[in-house]
């Protein structure tokens, strides 16, 4: 997309009809629970949008977030919008490499000082001054700090950037932390998920392009429109939970009948995300629909929640090991104390002095 081209021009050139574009705007507005007129506003704002500069920094991550957004079987409107908003710097997508790439980042930062959106995916290692992940000899920590101070707002895409994700999981050898632990003076929107739903990313960007403000966020900086409800609240299998009908294994009768996956470890009740409504793969389905329990990937520390296939109501550790240790320790301590009490009693008896009548008469 040329720098002077509008988004509408670009999408038209890519074969997206006006109807298709408006459908996207209406869907975005309704997904974000915006008022009725909002779709029109979004359409106008996005049509007129002239290539807002976006710098996308990838740190300790697996590129799954970028893949989720761009590698669908056919280009989705979401991926085209991502192309169109244009990335002045994105490792996976940019053509430039080496010093040319770093120059592009510097240039974009200077040209759009205070105006560009910074998207971050991946966590940032801070142990040992952040040496565990570097790009062009610059640590992730330094690059984030340098870039963030010129950004208008930061969108932390994926659970790693939002909450630390897998690199942050116990024992966290690199001291990985999320963006919000480092940057305190810029507006931050967290779009967690492993990966996040593409429409959530474009929805947040559309909101920002249309209104110039951040959408309403929850206490973890997640847009309430997408993360306001739990998977469980919106799950089509919820009635089975209420009726107490659970699949016990992945291939029993309950599983075939599509009963609730709570006993197989579903974290839906404590997971805030839009999977059950926005769905995946162009609206095809979401994990529970294909018979797999929710992993809770859009919540902090989802990797350390006591096992993906352990029910939410169970202890998040090996109870057997702990209980056995406790039984041995308790029995030993009990016998020890009991014997000590016995010894004390016999000593007391030995030293007991019987008072004679004569003594009492004195």
């Amino acid at each position, binding site marked *: 997309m040329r720098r002077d081209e509008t988004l509408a021009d670009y999408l038209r050139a890519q074969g997206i009809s006006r109807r298709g574009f408006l459908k996207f705007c209406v869907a975005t507005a309704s997904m974000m629970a915006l008022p009725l007129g909002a779709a029109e506003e979004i359409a106008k704002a996005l049509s007129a949008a002239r290539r807002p500069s976006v710098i996308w920094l990838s740190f300790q991550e697996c590129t799954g977030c970028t893949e989720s957004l761009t590698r669908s079987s056919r280009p989705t409107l979401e991926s085209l919008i991502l192309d169109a908003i244009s990335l002045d710097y994105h490792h996976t997508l940019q053509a430039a490499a080496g010093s040319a790439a770093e120059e592009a980042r510097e240039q974009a930062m200077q040209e759009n000082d205070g105006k560009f959106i910074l998207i971050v995916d991946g966590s940032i290692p801070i142990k040992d001054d952040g040496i565990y992940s570097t790009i062009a000899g610059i640590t992730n920590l330094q690059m984030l700090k340098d870039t963030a101070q010129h950004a208008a707002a930061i969108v932390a895409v994926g659970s790693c950037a939002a909450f630390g994700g897998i690199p942050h999981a116990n024992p966290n050898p690199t001291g990985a932390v999320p963006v919000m632990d480092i940057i305190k003076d810029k507006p931050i929107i967290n779009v967690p998920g492993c990966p996040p739903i593409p429409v959530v990313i474009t929805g947040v960007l559309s909101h920002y392009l249309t209104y110039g403000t951040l959408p309403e966020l929850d206490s973890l900086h997640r847009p309430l429109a997408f993360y306001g409800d739990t998977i469980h609240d919106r799950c089509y299998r919820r009635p089975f939970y209420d009726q107490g009908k659970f699949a016990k294994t992945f291939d029993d009768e309950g599983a075939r009948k599509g009963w609730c996956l709570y006993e197989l470890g579903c974290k839906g009740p404590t997971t805030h995300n839009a999977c059950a409504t926005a769905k995946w793969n162009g609206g095809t389905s979401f994990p529970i629909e294909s018979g797999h329990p929710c992993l809770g990937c859009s919540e902090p520390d989802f990797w350390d929640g006591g096992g993906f296939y352990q029910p939410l109501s169970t202890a998040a550790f090996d109870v057997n090991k702990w209980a056995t240790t406790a039984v041995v320790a308790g029995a030993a301590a009990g016998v020890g104390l*009991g014997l000590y009490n016995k010894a004390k009693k016999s000593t007391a008896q030995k030293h007991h002095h019987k008072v004679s009548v004569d003594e009492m008469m004195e």
Partner: protein
Amino acid sequence: MSAIEFLNWVRGPALQVSLMVFIIGMLIRVFEIWLLGRKKDLSVARDAGSTVAGLRTIITRSVPPPGMWSHLIAGYIFHVGFILVLLFFVPHILLFKKALGLSWPGIPNGIIDGLTIISLAAMVYTLAIRLSDPVRRTLSNFNDYFAWLVTFLPLLTGYLAFHRHVGDYTLMLGIHILSVNLLLIAFPFTKLTHAITVFAARWYNGAVAGRKGVRV
């Protein structure tokens, strides 16, 4: 700390500690009582068959003195309700299954719900009796009210979490498990220990009384 981190903490490290305190504490109590030994009986037993006297006391102490039927019914309802909810709510069974490797069929959620409300009401009634009756009030101290509270909280928070009445479910579930942690820690140090000593103590009292004195 976010709600989910709090939940992971209460069902992880916090539960590890409280489970340790519970198991070690209860075993110490049991072994101490067991190893206490018995005083040598220097007199001729009135009734050598003291087992019968012990069993009789277990039964007589389980029946209320005249005029205290409502107390007894409230007490029984709360105890039975609490145990049924603890052992037969499906998510609780999953907890025991993972810990002990044993599982059993659950009671439908609707019935568990009713049992919880009835148990809560019975507990409130027992507290009202304790507070309104001058004799009971005088006999009660902090330990009695504390034991009541740590038993009441898991029922109440469990009910609120299940129904999503107050705040965020994740947070409420975390508070529920925290209250269970509190109950586990309080167990060996309060009169809650009666859960394992009650019948042994009643039997012992009866058996001792059965031996004492002279046959008339």
